[in-house]
């Protein structure tokens, strides 16, 4: 079975600071990492490969320094990675992903995360499915892959919908679908020999344009008092309640 995982490099928003003068978020120097849920997607790909055999290709559209982070996914168990250095909106990202996938040719399952932690759209998976003209199963919290079909349960909050699909298919997975493995030292060392290809839009024959332009980012800061009582003595609990009364939020 040929499995493709789309993985994004994201900035770690929990480390983000807001510039007090410009009120803009400071993006420069922020650490980047693999989008959390994309590791669930890789884990699910490994499970499918363990059952049916085949190979796993990870594709990322992003900064050219993504190599290091792609190695993490190779160490987990992906067979090869493709890096497409580019920057752009969802049209650019999905056109490049689609072009790379078409170049790969044969594929059965494309796995994405339910959403990226920085942009949180959940757009790439279903958009790519539309572009490729294949079915989609989004927000899958379980996935069963059989020889000729894929069955996923979609978690919609108020109901769970079980979908059965032919292949090829795009599946977006939730955080709950599995627990991503931590690669062993042996796997980390072994992954050094796995290929990371670099493809460009030009070499793929596409030069997509951004259809949505980001004009500006406004920082949203949160001010809190940060008064912390170091233990749960009766006195501290009294003080806490007195403070809440003073704030006028209880009673």
């Amino acid at each position, binding site marked *: 079975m040929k499995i493709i995982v789309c993985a994004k490099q994201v900035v770690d928003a929990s480390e983000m600071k807001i510039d007090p003068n410009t009120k803009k978020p400071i993006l420069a120097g922020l650490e980047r990492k693999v989008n959390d849920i994309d590791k669930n997607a890789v884990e699910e790909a490994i499970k499918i490969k363990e059952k049916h055999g085949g190979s796993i290709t990870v594709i990322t559209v992003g900064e050219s320094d993504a190599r290091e982070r792609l190695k993490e996914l190779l160490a987990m168990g992906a067979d090869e990675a493709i890096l497409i250095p580019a920057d752009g909106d969802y049209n650019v990202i999905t056109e490049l992903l689609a072009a790379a996938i078409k170049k790969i040719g044969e594929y059965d399952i494309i796995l994405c995360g339910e959403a990226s932690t920085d942009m949180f759209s959940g757009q790439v998976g279903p958009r790519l499915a539309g572009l490729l003209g294949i079915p989609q199963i989004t927000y899958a919290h379980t996935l069963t892959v059989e020889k000729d079909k894929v069955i996923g349960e979609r978690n919609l909050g108020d109901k769970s919908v079980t979908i059965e699909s032919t292949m090829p298919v795009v599946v977006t997975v939730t955080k709950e679908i599995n627990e991503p493995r931590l690669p062993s030292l042996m796997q980390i060392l072994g992954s050094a020999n796995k290929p990371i290809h670099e493809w460009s839009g030009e070499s793929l024959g596409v030069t997509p344009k951004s*259809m*949505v332009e980001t*004009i500006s980012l406004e920082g949203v800061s949160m001010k809190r008092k940060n008064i912390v009582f170091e233990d749960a003595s009766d006195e501290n609990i009294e003080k806490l309640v007195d403070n809440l009364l003073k704030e006028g939020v209880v009673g």
Partner: protein
Amino acid sequence: MVLVYSEKENIAYELLNKGRELADKLGRKLIAVVIGGDKDLAKNLIAYGADEVVVIKSPVSSFKAEEYADILKQVVEEKSVETILIGSTKNGKELASRLSGILKTGCIIDAVDVYLEDNKVYTKRVVYSGNAVALQGFNSKPAIVTIPPRLIDPLPRDDKRKGEIEEKEYKVKPSSSSIVKITEMQTDSVNVEEADIIVSCGRGFKNKEDLKLAEELAEALKGKTIGCSRPIAADLKWLSEDHWIGLSGHKVKPKLYIAVGISGQIQHIAGMRDSGIVVAINKDPDALIFKSADYGIVGDLYEVLPKLTEVIKEKLG
């Protein structure tokens, strides 16, 4: 033309208010689409602001993004639609995204504001787990935007409004996926988004039964509303998903938010950053949640909660 669609009736009414505003400014008609619905719904959509309702009679039953996107694509092309508003449910988001892939056009998910400038569509949306708001503009047509529920009130219902109802049948390419089962999930029908006081539970709780400690505190505070982090609802299923707060859950703004046994990961904070006063109870002095709290107690929740409930009862009577 401006088009609105949601598979949820009440969300469609909300979208019609924004759609009306955009359509009037653009000097265009406002179309609502009903897929597999009835005429009564079409009449309601007119009463809430639509100029025209397209009722699709094609043989599709339950929601399937592949088929619904195919239908909307045909409506968009036939009616020269330039602006599309879709309700941001999980189904709505996958529908809008798929449609944008088919039409190769721009799409913005979860806009908290949509407006026009020089006839161009602009939106604002929350990014980086609530750390920033992005202002974005469309360079392509049609512009597809999804809008979260309850962000906009519907216009007052006006049964005297006039509009056209058109029944349509399109050829729909059948999807090669099928729905094999739908299971209703249990819900408690709580509305955390409207709650004044929320006691929110995280993985610091060891058993489902222990959540009653939080309930007792909520009751003493006369708040009664229990919230939770994602793992409590999604992994452990100790509470139904209507309690779930955060980036992928509900966004809340109570005057008092008490986070109990919650570590304070940014994806949780994203759902409660607009709270008035935040109190954190956590046994780890280095827990991130203290950075997002006004008041904190470092301690074991099994010791703190009963004591706190007792003192609150004493002081509030």
